[in-house]
């Protein structure tokens, strides 16, 4: 089928969208920043597109619900960045989202799309893992983000299922966090490796991006951090990484970076004196 002949349906309600997506071969499209690229490259050849933008009224929101925050799937990265609630109560997500693309990409790309594409290099995902996020499906059920992600581009969803939002507990005021991203240039870069870290007394979260088939949490690193052992945490991160070699970087380097980015993040959060580096000072 010529691309010019692929229909685009624009449902007005979630129910209608779900019905359309039950047709085999259809795909949802929101901001299009991933979908359109894959379509043009011929990687995705849907029989029809289901354009979700008319559902923005329903699915673009940032809600506070006591300790919880809930973000609608069609919320754009720009909207997340502009949100005082996100900046203050989920600063980790704000830091991660800031590294996505450039302004126009952030205006188009959505949090739901980033989840749906399920790329291990999706920059909002390590933050969501570190926030123990739950993904809302069809507006009714929830599934833990780690449970949802099966592999690159693969999700534990049925035909007709639609990601409608994501929810997580707000970060505590006394915690510190950082998102460390390593790309091949300063902006508009695909992650070679990334680390999302949260720390509070007795609590640590470490999630690694782009060093395994999915984003991964590193419980050993978290335990080491709770015990105050930065070097052990970095070593655990390197141990947990299962990176690949590609045109951008070798697996060996990515593995080393999983640890070093964690160290860098710790130094940024806690000050360099509180962290003992591994690998030594090259000088």
């Amino acid at each position: 089928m010529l691309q010019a002949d692929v229909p685009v349906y624009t449902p007005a309600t979630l129910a209608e969208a779900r019905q359309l997506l039950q047709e085999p071969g259809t795909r949802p499209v929101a901001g299009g920043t991933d979908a359109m690229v894959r379509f043009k490259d011929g990687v995705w050849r849907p029989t029809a597109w289901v354009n979700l933008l008319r559902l923005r009224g329903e699915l673009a929101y940032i809600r506070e619900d006591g300790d919880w925050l809930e973000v609608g799937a069609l919320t754009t990265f720009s909207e997340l960045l502009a949100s005082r609630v996100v900046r203050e109560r989920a600063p980790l997500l704000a830091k991660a989202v800031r590294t996505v693309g450039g302004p126009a990409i952030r205006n188009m790309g959505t949090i739901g799309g980033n989840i749906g594409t399920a790329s291990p290099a999706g920059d909002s995902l390590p933050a969501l893992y570190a926030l123990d996020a739950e993904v809302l499906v069809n507006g009714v059920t929830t599934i833990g983000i780690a449970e949802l992600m099966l592999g690159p581009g693969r999700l534990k969803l049925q035909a007709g299922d639609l990601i409608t939002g994501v929810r997580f507990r707000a970060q505590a005021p006394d915690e510190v966090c950082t998102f460390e991203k390593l790309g091949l240039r300063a902006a508009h870069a695909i992650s070679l490796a990334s680390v999302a870290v949260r720390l509070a007394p007795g609590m640590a979260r470490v999630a690694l991006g782009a060093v395994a088939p999915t984003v991964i949490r590193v419980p050993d690193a978290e335990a080491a951090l709770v015990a105050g052992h930065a070097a052990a945490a970095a070593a655990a991160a390197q141990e947990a990484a299962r990176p690949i070699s590609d045109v951008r970087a070798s697996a060996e380097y990515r593995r080393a970076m999983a640890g070093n980015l964690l160290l860098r993040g710790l130094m940024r959060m806690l000050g360099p004196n509180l962290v003992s580096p591994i690998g030594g000072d090259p000088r």
Partner: protein
Amino acid sequence: MTNQQTWIGKSVHRVDAPAKLKGEPVYMTDRPLENPCFGRVLRSRYPHARILRIDTAKASALPGVICVLTHKDVPGLNGFGIVIPDQPVLCFDKVRMMGDALALVAAETPEIAAAALDLIEVDYEPLPIVDDALAAIMPGSPLVHETGNIHLRTVIRRGEVAQAFAEAAVVVDHVYFTPRQAHMFLETEGGVGQLMPNGELHIWCPAQAAFRDRLQVARLLGWDPERIREYSSPSGGAFGGKDELTVQHYLALLALHTGGRPVKIHLSREESTVAGIKRHPFMVQMRTAAAADGTFLAQEAFVVADTGAYASLGGPVLNLAIEHIGGVYRFPSLNVEGYCVYTNNGISGAFRGFGVPQVLVALESNIDEIARRLGRDPLDLRRQNLIQRGDLSAIGNPMTTGVGNQAVLEALENSPTWKERTAKKAAVTDPWKRRGVGIGLCMQGLGLGKGIPDYGAAVIELLPGGKFKVGISIQEIGTGNQTAYAQFAAEALGCDVADVEVIQGDTGYSADAGTVTATRSVFTGGKAIQITAEKMVALLRSTGAESYAAAYAVARERGLETKVRGSFAWPEADEEIPGAFGLPHHIYGYGAQAALVEVDTLTGEVQVLEVASVVDTGKSINPMGVEGQSEGGVAQGVGLALMEDTVVREGRFLNANMSNYIIPTAGDVPKVETFIVEVHEEKGPSGAKGMGEVPIVPTMPAIFGAIYDAVGVQMFRAPATPERVYMAMMGDPSATEDTPALRARIAEGRRAGLAAQLHQTEGEGYAQPKGPEDEEA
């Protein structure tokens, strides 16, 4: 009219800026078209294969397809190439790279054209791939061309090399590798072809050599060039990448089969990357000798340039690199041996700097090491060895024109980046980062070089109201020459810049002034316009009128020709360098840079914080334009040094799009401070030389020097990606590729190259200039 200098040296606003900023259809790929059809090119599926069969029947039968063409439809010479036509227009016997073209389609829509490509059946017999330039020289390597894989071998020897190395206090010997940088001009190759009702073929296509393009198209069509008109300016960036034919040949062939309808081709970024030319990747083994007092004694180098499947400008690129193998320094002894080699790795050709950045990084890095080993200040050591006017360059060229070295070095020394380097390095923000400062000095031969016809020509037409139209074939590819030409004309004619319209790149309007390459456009166009303007002034005098407006009226009344023409030949060196076609150059641009970098020791990331960029322009025609070129050259140099490489494995392209082939963003570029040095060039227009290529040349060595200064590791392979820097910092043995095995391969390559040279029969292949007698290699 006035003789006062009112326009030269003034930062006149770009005359082309408003229309471009408004989005007017000024580019060739933006032209509004009446009833267009759309062309596509079928590219190879293999990097090296025999073609057994091409069947276009199904594609031709697809509704909406207008024509499908193959090699059988090339009426003239089925080959093109600036120096030798070794690249097939449409392949017939075999393919040698992924970008090779096998068939052309014109259709009602781009998508139908794409669908038709899928219906063309080609049977291939894959052949062994040549993907390593050094391996390509070796005996037994598969052949890319039947004439052999060595396109050009150039050897220059001078002085007592062996003795110099024996007597040296310091000898530094390393192997360096530079990447296959892609031009990544934002406007990909494209354009429109149309057979006009008067029987002429018109081609609108951004390009760098309108008249030569016309000749190449005429040759493949078997036409009189006068029947072809190319409009080729402005271009949305070129940098050398549109010097060769890009799509003109395809447009020409298709336009003969579309019934007079305009046919448009505009390459996708991916197709552009795969099919377009690149910067030649170089391997440079360089051995440099210095005396205990710091005097440079000898320079020895073995250079291999990967030109890919076809020559394009590979030979001249190699030779320009060799000409600059000693940089801006006196070397009494020299032994350089260079190879330009065919492989199946796409195709390389002209790119800003033209081979010089590839060898300069080796030279300047070696010099830094000499300075360290002698305990010398790197800038001071360079000063000691600078070529002065009247000296011989490393290849033995008497430097008789304006030499900017001394002034350039002084400006560098006084730049804040260098002068305040201690404080700047100490101002590091994060404790896991280290800062360093490095420098690089360069020169760059201007114009095409000895023995290559190089000339300029212009027309000036007097218009009603006393306005002027200046015609010159040299294109505006972004450098600002359109504005500079208006300034030259206004200055010479004594009018306002606003009264001058500059028409560029149109073979139907102006005479042939050659290419917009080799930093020749300000010199060539400026000189041609000045010479032509004298004739216009003479015309005015002959009318006896007081003003150009009145002169126009008088001229019309008397039936005088109101369009005047002028031309000149480029000055060239008296003596050629034996064995090195096109060498030497006669006039050189000079430049130097200091770079301040910050290295993240945890990741190997290098951020270039600031660059002081010194350029000797001769007279600077438009200082703001010079600054822009300087800033842009540095940005491309940052890309070359730190992030850019078209990765080709087994002949296939791994990063053809802009998400994987990355160029610097707004967040990656340093703050650039430009220092213009004006060393008057007597032979140039108003004392000008030109400077477009200069600023990309010293950036890579300055950055490499700064990385060393920061973290104590020398980079030997560009780009210095975070991974490479990190691995080098960790002392990873694979970080230096200079192993005994590589040295053995180099030695074998030298022997094989010499043997191939000796076996080459005269008149076969590219007419290779004979080198001096080879000693035992």
